[in-house]
C-alpha cells in the first residue's frame, strides 16, 4: 500500500507542473494582450535612433506600456554599454 501511495504521489506531479507552466505562459501572453499593434515597430525605430548615438545591442532595449486608471505610461529601458 505504501508503495502504491508513493507511486501515486510521484505521478501527481505532471498535471501540477503543467498548471504552473501554463500560469506563467498565460500571464506573459496577457501582459502583451492590451498592447497596441504599433509597439514592435516603435521598439525597432527607437532602437535605430538610439543606435545613431550609442552602440547598443539588439536586446538592450526594453519597452512596455502600462495602464493605470486613466493614463498610460510608456516605459523605456535601455542598457548602455560600459564606457571602456
Amino acid at each position, binding site marked *: 500500500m505504501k508503495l502504491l501511495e508513493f507511486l501515486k504521489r510521484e*505521478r*501527481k506531479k505532471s*498535471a501540477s507542473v503543467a498548471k504552473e507552466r*501554463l500560469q506563467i505562459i*498565460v500571464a506573459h501572453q*496577457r501582459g502583451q494582450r492590451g498592447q497596441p499593434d504599433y509597439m514592435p515597430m516603435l521598439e525597432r525605430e527607437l532602437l535605430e535612433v538610439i543606435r545613431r548615438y550609442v552602440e547598443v545591442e539588439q536586446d538592450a532595449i526594453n519597452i512596455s506600456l502600462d495602464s493605470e486608471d486613466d493614463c498610460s505610461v510608456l516605459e523605456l529601458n535601455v542598457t548602455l554599454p560600459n564606457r571602456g
Partner: protein
Amino acid sequence: MARIIVVTSGKGGVGKTTSAAAIATGLALRGNKTVVIDFDVGLRNLDLIMGCERRVVYDLVNVIQGEAGLNQALIRDKRSDHLYILPASQTRDKDALTLEGVEQVLEKLAEDFDYIVCDSPAGIERGAQLAMYFADEAIVVTNPEVSSVRDSDRILGLLASKTRRAEQAQDPVVERLLITRYDPNRVDSGDMLNLEDIQEILAIKLIGLIPESEAVLRASNSGVPVTHDQDSDAGQAYSDTVARLLGDEKPLRFHQLQKKSFLSRIFGGGRR
C-alpha cells in the same frame, strides 16, 4: 434576433467540428431553427461529421462569390427539420472569403434562423478571425493539455480585440469554455489537468465538459452527430451543454471518477 455562436480553439484536433455539429444538433433538437457553417475553407469536414457529404452541391464560397444563392447551398439535415448545414469549399483557399461577403451571408441567415453556429478552422489566421468576427458568443473548445490551453488563451485575446463587438466597443463577445476529451481517471492519477485548474488559468465560465468517449469516434464514423446517441456519456454531456446555452441550470456530469462495481470489473466496462 439570431445568436451567432463561434466554436473555436486555436489548436487543431481538439474537437471543434465535433462540438459544432453536436451543439447545432442539440439546439435544433430543442426546437431552435439552427444553421451550422463550416469556415474551414479548403479542408472542409463538417459535412462528413454531419453525414451530408454526398449532398454538397454549392458551398459558402459559391454564395459569397455570387455563383449560387444561399438557399441552393444550404443543406437540410436528414434527422432534424430545424437544422441546416452550410458547407465550406474544398477547392478554393481561405482568401476566397471576404469580410463583407461573410457579413452579407450572416445577415441573410439571421432573418430566418434562431442560431448561427460558426465552425472555425484551427489557427489564429484569417479564416479563424473571419469565423469569430461577427460572433455574439464564443465556445472555446479546450483539451486538458498544455498546448490546447495556451492556444485557447491566445484565442481569448483575439476575441477581445479582433471582433466586431470589440472594434465597435459594443458589449464584448460572451466567452464560454468547453472542455473536451476529459478523462477523470487520468485526472485522478495526476496526469491530466483538472477542470478547476483549466478554469482558473483561462478565467472564463465553463459551459460544458465532454468526457473522453468511444461514442465520439462512433458518431463521426457513421456521420451522425453524437448528440443523437443519448445512451452515450458524450451525447448526454453535449445535451447538457446545449441546455446551459439555452439558460437551463444543469449540474456537471461525467467529471468524477466512476467507481467500478465488482461485476463490471470482471466483465468489463460495457458500452460508454
